[in-house]
């Protein structure tokens, strides 16, 4: 291995701040003009991204959008048709996977069944011909980091799914990769373990200051774990933004369609609700940025300062999503989703109730496409 990652990465104090995004750094990842076709079908194209050292990036998108193939291309497991991949100052576009200094965690763990936990973790160090004493020390350290010290002598088939993925994580971390790639690492796990491991991954990534690219199709996971989210759709990155921006300011119809449960309206349809004619072709309204009032009382607390005109509507359906009640309201022959906080059963509106609907004008998203 010829990369120059500092040996101290694992031993650095937890919480040492990673370089702030967009400033680059020695393990910054630069993707320029990446494109890949299978036969004549493009898998992804025009991929441009600058990822700062220590940044946690999530590639979010529906299945088949090319996110996993993109990740494999960065790992060197799939050949690119076009483009350049650089880590720090080094061009790794044409290096074989074993010389890229890139670590990867697979969805189905890909642990070596003939080796114990310790053996799996030590594998990368053996390949680097790290001397035995040093190897044992580093394996022990990283196994402790993923809280598997008691299981170190066990074989992968004796572990639970969550434990196996932690072994896979430790195995990738111990060689101190310059970039860590994770391909839907939590998808095969059940919900409770997924949440726990998600937080653990984020914590470890932060403490090591590891440049990380994480692939998922789970919107909630992406929003919770990332510094920035790259939203992918049909082989392109639609939007690169922080969780807040991505959620509240989608760039286009496809982005709005994938995030949350936006109401997407044509500009003329939206006019009565906004009180003005939007210059954009489409308008996106989040269900929680619409307010319902019954007999002059607004549900869910104080209304925001800039409200559109009140329009009469009828509750067509109500669904309870736990802490949220989602209403389907018919207004001017449109069907709108409106979310309200489920404070009490008393405030729930029955189907058929007449209501007034108002939009929070500060939260209106005008979409050009």
């Amino acid at each position: 291995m010829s990369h120059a990652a500092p040996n101290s990465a694992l031993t650095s104090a937890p919480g040492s701040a990673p370089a702030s995004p967009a400033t680059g750094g020695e393990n910054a990842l630069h993707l320029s003009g990446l494109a890949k076709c299978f036969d004549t079908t493009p898998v992804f194209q025009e991929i441009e991204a600058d990822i700062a050292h220590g940044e946690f990036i999530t590639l979010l998108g529906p299945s088949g959008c090319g996110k996993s193939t993109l990740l494999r291309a960065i790992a060197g497991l799939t050949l690119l048709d076009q483009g350049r991949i650089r880590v720090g100052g080094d061009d790794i576009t044409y290096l074989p996977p074993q010389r890229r200094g890139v670590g990867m965690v697979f969805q189905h763990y890909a642990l070596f069944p003939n080796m114990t936990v310790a053996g799996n973790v030590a594998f990368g160090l053996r390949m680097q011909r790290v001397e035995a004493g040093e190897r044992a020390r580093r394996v022990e350290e990283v196994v402790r980091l993923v809280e598997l010290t008691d299981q170190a002598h066990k074989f992968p088939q004796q572990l639970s799914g969550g434990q196996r993925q932690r072994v896979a994580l430790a195995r990738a971390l111990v060689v101190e990769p310059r970039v860590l790639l994770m391909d839907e690492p939590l998808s095969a796990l059940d919900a409770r373990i997924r949440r726990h491991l998600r937080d653990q991954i984020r914590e470890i990534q932060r403490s090591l200051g590891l440049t990380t690219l994480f692939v998922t199709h789970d919107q909630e996971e992406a929003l919770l774990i990332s510094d920035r989210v790259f939203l992918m759709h049909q082989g392109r990155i639609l939007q690169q933004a922080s969780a807040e921006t991505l959620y509240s300011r989608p760039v286009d119809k496809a982005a709005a369609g994938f995030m949350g449960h936006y109401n997407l309206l044509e500009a003329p349809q939206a006019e009565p609700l906004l009180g003005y004619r939007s210059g954009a072709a489409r308008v996106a309204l989040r269900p929680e940025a619409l307010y319902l009032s019954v007999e002059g009382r607004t549900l869910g607390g104080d209304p925001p300062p800039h409200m559109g005109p009140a329009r009469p509507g009828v509750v067509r359906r109500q669904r309870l999503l736990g802490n949220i009640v989602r209403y389907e309201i018919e207004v001017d022959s449109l069907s709108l989703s409106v979310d309200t906080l489920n404070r009490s059963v008393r405030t729930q509106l029955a189907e058929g109730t007449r209501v007034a609907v108002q939009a929070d004008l500060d939260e209106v998203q005008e979409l050009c496409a």
Partner: protein
Amino acid sequence: MAHADSLPRPLPLAEPRRRGRFRLPSSYTLVLAGVLLLLALPLVATLGYALASRWGATLLPEGLTLAWFLELWATPRFLAAFGRSLLISVGALALSLALILPVAVLAQTRYPHLDHWMNTLILMPFAVPPVVSSVGLLQLYAGGPLSLVGTPWILILTYFTIALPFMYRTLANSLRAMNVVELMEAAQLLGASPFRAFFLVILPNIRAGVQIAIFLSFSFLVGEFVFANMLVGTRFETLQVYLNNMRGASGHFTSALVITLFTVTLVLTWLGARQADYTPKEASR
């Protein structure tokens, strides 16, 4: 592996009945006992004959002796034939392993369409009877540029084709049981070259499969007669050919030979089956 599964296993016993009445054995037991008897009878008889000092006019052997075995094991011609059989089987297996293992790995990873072709190809040795193919081989290799008939080489090459189905199927199955592609990728991302990845990660995980393939093919090849007799015959006398040539000698002597051969094959098959039991459980859960 299918071999081990096909061995009859004792059924778990139900609640013991306490009625103390004689019950007829179930039809299952009867059939099983019948089959076992049918299979064991010739062997038992042969063993009896090999151990008998004389077994002619009486119902049971007249006396027990190990003389036939001792005589057999002291015959240089027998030992030489045994050695030749071992040599040819081991040679054929080494050749098979060297050729088939890479093909199986490639067919299970990079070129899946190869698997389809191999599955058709491995039926060929079964489709063409040995007598037919040996006549063809005789015509091809009796003269001309490649005159192999009568040499051990033609047997090694022919035995390769016989071992092919056993080898390929067993190896392909054990490769399919694990995610070869992903394991190779994981190893490579950790810094291993494809070559090292194969030897450190793939090979140890199919070791059991390789051993089963070797033992099963070996026990089959040691007992092969038709090709050995037709293609080489007495010019490179193997065990089965020797047995055939000795059929005019004392029946006690040939019985000892058969029992020896059977024991060797049995031990090898048992070793193979034992390996099957040791196969590590799959990682996928």
